[in-house]
């Protein structure tokens, strides 16, 4: 197992490469989740604002 992890001396290159792949794509995948939450909040806020504009 340690042999496998060592990658015959190339561990310092191989594992970071796989890590970058995983981290970047993971970040990319969760970004829309946050964006969606923010936008739903914005829409709700805008609806409230529009409602308070009509009242006077």
């Amino acid at each position, binding site marked *: 197992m340690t042999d*496998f992890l060592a*990658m*015959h*001396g*190339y561990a310092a*290159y*191989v594992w*970071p*490469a*796989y890590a*970058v*792949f995983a981290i*970047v*794509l993971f*970040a*990319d*995948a969760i*970004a*829309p*989740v946050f*964006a*969606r939450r923010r*936008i*739903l909040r*914005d*829409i*709700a806020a*805008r*609806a*409230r604002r*529009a*409602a308070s504009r*009509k009242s006077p």
Partner: protein
Amino acid sequence: MNPLVLWFHKLGSPPYFYSFAGRWIPWLYGIALVAAAFGFYGALFTAPADYQQGDSFRIMYVHVPCAWMGLFAYLFMAVNGFIALVWRIKLSETLAMASAPIGAAFTFITLVTGSLWGKPTWGTWWTWDARLTSELVLLFLYFGVIGLYHAIEDRRQAARAAAFLALIGVVNLPIVHYSVIWWNTLHQGQTVSLIGPSKIAPSMLWPLLTLAIATHMYFFASLFARARVALLELESGKEWVRALLPVTETSHD
């Protein structure tokens, strides 16, 4: 009308696409995960070490699929941008802009993994060879598109301006792809070919192709997720979006 054309028409309507994409996203992510699991198993365990490069060649299994996706995403963006400019279809604008950050992510991974591969094989993290340079230009083009899109206030106008830029940048794609042929450089020549025979052993090839499938599926899953969010923003005044909000938020007049 031809049923396929009809289906495309329907797909072009934001609420329909919203629910259509919502249905497909879990499947696409699922397939991508399964294919990636198989692919990585093959890449790390079954593929034999390269006789020249040793185990460092295993970087190929992230490098090459991501490189392909970086180019594919740009092409996808440009085609949708073209449709958006000519026929002004909202969904195409959305898809074009949604594919930019994903493409940029793949291009970024390509550059980083390429660097990580270059250090042991070429002895340097970076050189200014034609493929590497044009790939860097590709990343800058993505940044330009994204930057332009976010710098303009009106969403639709922003999408059209950015799509225009994306179209201008298409000239870079053949340069990236053919640079290894047009200029003789440090970077690996074309080794995998879908049409002709590939210059690579099958036990090395199948994990690569599986991972290519995984990244494609991932691309569409992420694309759909981003497009759904963008549509929500674009159509925030429309009834179908209001209907998605919690009940207390919808106004009654």
